C-alpha cells in the first residue's frame, strides 16, 4: 500500500506556484523525510496530503487511494502541524478528552501512560508547558489516535537537542510497535540521517528526489581527483561539483561497481552530504528511482 500518492499535484497561491507537477509515491512502512529549503513547498505538500489545502492541479490520495481530506483519510492520518498548535487554555486532560471525542479511535490508556512517563501533569494547561513538553503532548494526542500514517511538519525545529531526541524516539517507538508510517518534513539534516529511510527532496516547488535511502546511497558516489580532469565527467550524471586548486569533488550517480578513471577515488556518501549536494543544485534530479549504471560513459572516460 502507498501511504501517499500524488499525480501532477500543484498548488497555487495567487499567481505563485508553491508546488508544481508533483508526482510522488510513498510506500507504507517507512519514515519518509521531506527535505528542502525554505519555501520549497514542504508545508504545502503536507497540507495537501492531510486535506488542509485543496489542490489547484492534479490529485493526491492517501492510505491506498483515499482522497486526501475525506473522512476515511482523516480517520487514518494524524497530523502534527508546525509549532504544534493546541488550545492553550485547555489542560492536557481536556485535550485528551477533546481528541478522543473527535475521533473514532483513541487510546486513552496509552496517552495517559505516555504523559505520565514524560512527566506532563494532566491538569497543566497546554499554554504553560515547555516547548518540548508541548510538542510531546501534541505527538501523544496524534499517536493515541492509532493512525496508520503520522504526518509531522517541522516537528523538531523549535526543540532543544534533548527534546528533539526524545521526540524522535517516541516516533520511532510508535513505528516499531504499531507499524505506523511516518512522513515528516525537516531541515535538520543530521536528525534525518538517524531516522529516515525514505527521502523526498523538494526544490522550488518540484520534486527532485523521491527514493529509499538505501537505494539512494547505493547509487551515488563521491569522486575525488585532479581538478584539471573534472571536465572529463561532464557527460556523467554529476549532481554536484566542488572544485579546488588541485582537487575536485564530484557527487555522481554511480554504483559501487562502476569503474573509476585512473587518478580518481570513489567514496560512498552519507545522507546529509547527499541531501546537501542536491539542495545546492536545484536543477539536478534523480527521478524516478535510482540511477541506471553508466558503464559506457565510464569506459569512454578511462581511454
Amino acid at each position, binding site marked *: 500500500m502507498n501511504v501517499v500518492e500524488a499525480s501532477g499535484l500543484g498548488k497555487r497561491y495567487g499567481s505563485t506556484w508553491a508546488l508544481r507537477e508533483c508526482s510522488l509515491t510513498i510506500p507504507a512502512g517507512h519514515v519518509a523525510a521531506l527535505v528542502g529549503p525554505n519555501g520549497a513547498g514542504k508545508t504545502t505538500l503536507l497540507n495537501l496530503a492531510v486535506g488542509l489545502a485543496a489542490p489547484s492541479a492534479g490529485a493526491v490520495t492517501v492510505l491506498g487511494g483515499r482522497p486526501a481530506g475525506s473522512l476515511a483519510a482523516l480517520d487514518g492520518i494524524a497530523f502534527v502541524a508546525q509549532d504544534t498548535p493546541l488550545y492553550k487554555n485547555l489542560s492536557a486532560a481536556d485535550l485528551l478528552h477533546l481528541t478522543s471525542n*473527535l475521533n473514532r479511535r483513541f487510546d486513552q490508556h496509552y496517552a495517559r501512560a505516555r504523559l505520565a512517563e514524560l512527566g506532563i501533569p494532566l491538569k497543566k494547561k497546554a499554554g504553560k508547558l515547555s516547548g518540548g513538553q508541548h510538542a510531546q503532548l501534541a505527538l501523544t494526542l496524534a499517536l493515541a489516535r492509532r493512525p496508520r500514517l503520522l504526518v509531522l511538519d517541522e516537528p523538531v525545529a523549535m526543540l532543544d537537542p534533548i527534546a528533539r531526541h526524545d521526540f524522535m524516539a517516541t516516533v520511532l517507538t510508535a513505528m516499531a510497535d504499531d507499524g505506523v508510517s511516518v512522513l515528516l518534513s525537516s531541515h535538520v539534516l543530521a536528525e534525518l540521517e538517524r531516522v529516515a529511510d525514505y527521502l523526498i527532496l523538494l526544490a522550488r516547488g518540484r520534486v527532485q528526489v523521491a527514493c529509499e535511502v538505501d537505494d539512494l546511497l547505493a547509487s551515488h558516489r563521491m569522486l575525488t581527483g585532479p581538478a584539471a580532469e573534472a571536465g572529463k565527467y561532464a557527460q556523467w550524471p554529476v549532481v554536484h561539483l566542488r572544485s579546488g586548486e588541485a582537487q575536485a569533488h564530484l557527487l555522481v550517480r554511480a554504483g559501487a561497481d562502476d569503474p573509476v578513471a585512473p587518478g580518481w577515488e570513489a567514496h560512498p556518501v552519507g545522507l546529509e552530504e547527499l541531501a546537501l549536494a542536491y539542495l545546492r543544485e536545484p536543477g539536478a534530479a534523480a527521478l524516478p528511482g535510482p540511477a541506471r549504471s553508466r558503464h559506457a560513459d565510464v569506459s569512454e572516460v578511462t581511454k
Partner: protein
Amino acid sequence: MTALTMTARPAEDASLRPVPWRRMAWVTWRQHRIALTGVAVFLGACAIYVWINGLQLHHAYAAAAACHPAASPACSALSSGFHVGAFLLNGYNLQAVPALIGAFAGAPLLARELETGTFRYAWTQGFGRSRWTLAKLVPLAVLLAAAAGALSVLLSWYYQPSFAPRNPALFPLPMSTFAATLFDLRGIAFAAWTLAAFAIGALAGMLIRRVVPAIAATLAAYAGLAFAAALYLRPHYLTPLVTRNVFRYFLSPPGSDYVVRQWWTKGGTTLSQSTTDQVINSTFTRMMPVAHSSREGAVAALKQPTNVHVFHYLTQHGYTQWTSYQPPSRFWPFQWIEGGWLFALSVLLIAATIWLVRRRAA
C-alpha cells in the same frame, strides 16, 4: 527509552461510520462555555435592569392612566414619573445587544482558530471539518437565539405602556407599533436579529481570520443591515394602505398607524415637494398673514391642530392629501416577515461559512 507498548490495533471498520454527532456536544460546550456564560451574565444583567425599570414604569403608567382630571397639575406631575425609564424607553441602547452577542460570541469562533493556528489541529481530526463547523455553529446559534428570545419576552412586557391607549394630554408623543427602535426588540424579531448577528460574526471571522478585525467588521455589518432594514425594508414588507385627507400629522392616535409617505395631488397630478410647500405656504400666509412668514414656520404650523382649517381650505379647492400607511394590525405579520428573512439570511450565512471552511483552508 520506553516500556510502553500499544495494544493491538482494532480491526479496521470496513463501513467506516463517521464519529457520532453527540461527541461534538462536549467539545462545543468545553470550548465555548466561557463565551456562553458571558452571554448569559450579560443578558441576565440586562434582564434585571429591564425588570426593575419595568416595574417602576408600569406602576407610573397605571397611576397616570387613573388620574382625573387629566389636565390637572397633579396629573402632569404623575406623567413625569412615566419617564423614569427613559434610558431604555426609546430603545436605542438595547439595539446594541444582538450586535454585541454576534461580535463577541460569533466572530471569534473561527477567527481564533485561524489566528492561533489551532484549525490545523481541529480540522485534521477524524470528525471532519465541515461537520465540526456545523456542530459548533448550529447549537450555539440556537442557544443564543433562545436566550435573546427570552429577553425579548421581558422587553415586550416592558414596552407595553408605550403602546397602550393613552391620555393624549399626558403623553403627547404618539408611539407607533412600528417605531424603528422598538419593533426589533419585541416579538420574534429580537431573537432573529441575534441569530443574524451571530451568523454575520461567524462568516466575518472565517473571511477575516483575525479576532479583533472580525469583531469590528461584525459590528459594522450588523449596524449597516439594521439601519437598512429599518429605513428601506420594513415599511414595504406589505403593500401600504392608502387613504386620503386624514391629516395624520395630528390625528394619528398613539400606537397606531405607521405613516410610510404623504403627498398631495391636484386634478390627478402629483405635486412635487417644493410645489406642495409653496401652496401650503401661500395658503397659510393668506389665511394667517401675521403669525408666520417663513416656509419652515408654515409647514411646522400645519402640525398644530389649530391649523386644520388650512387643510380643509385646500381640499375644498381641489387639492387632495394622500397618506400611505401600515396599520397596527400588521404588527405580527411584519414580525414573521422580518423573522423569516433574517432566519433565511442566517441559514445562508452559516452555509456560506461552512462552504468556506471546506474550500478555503490553509
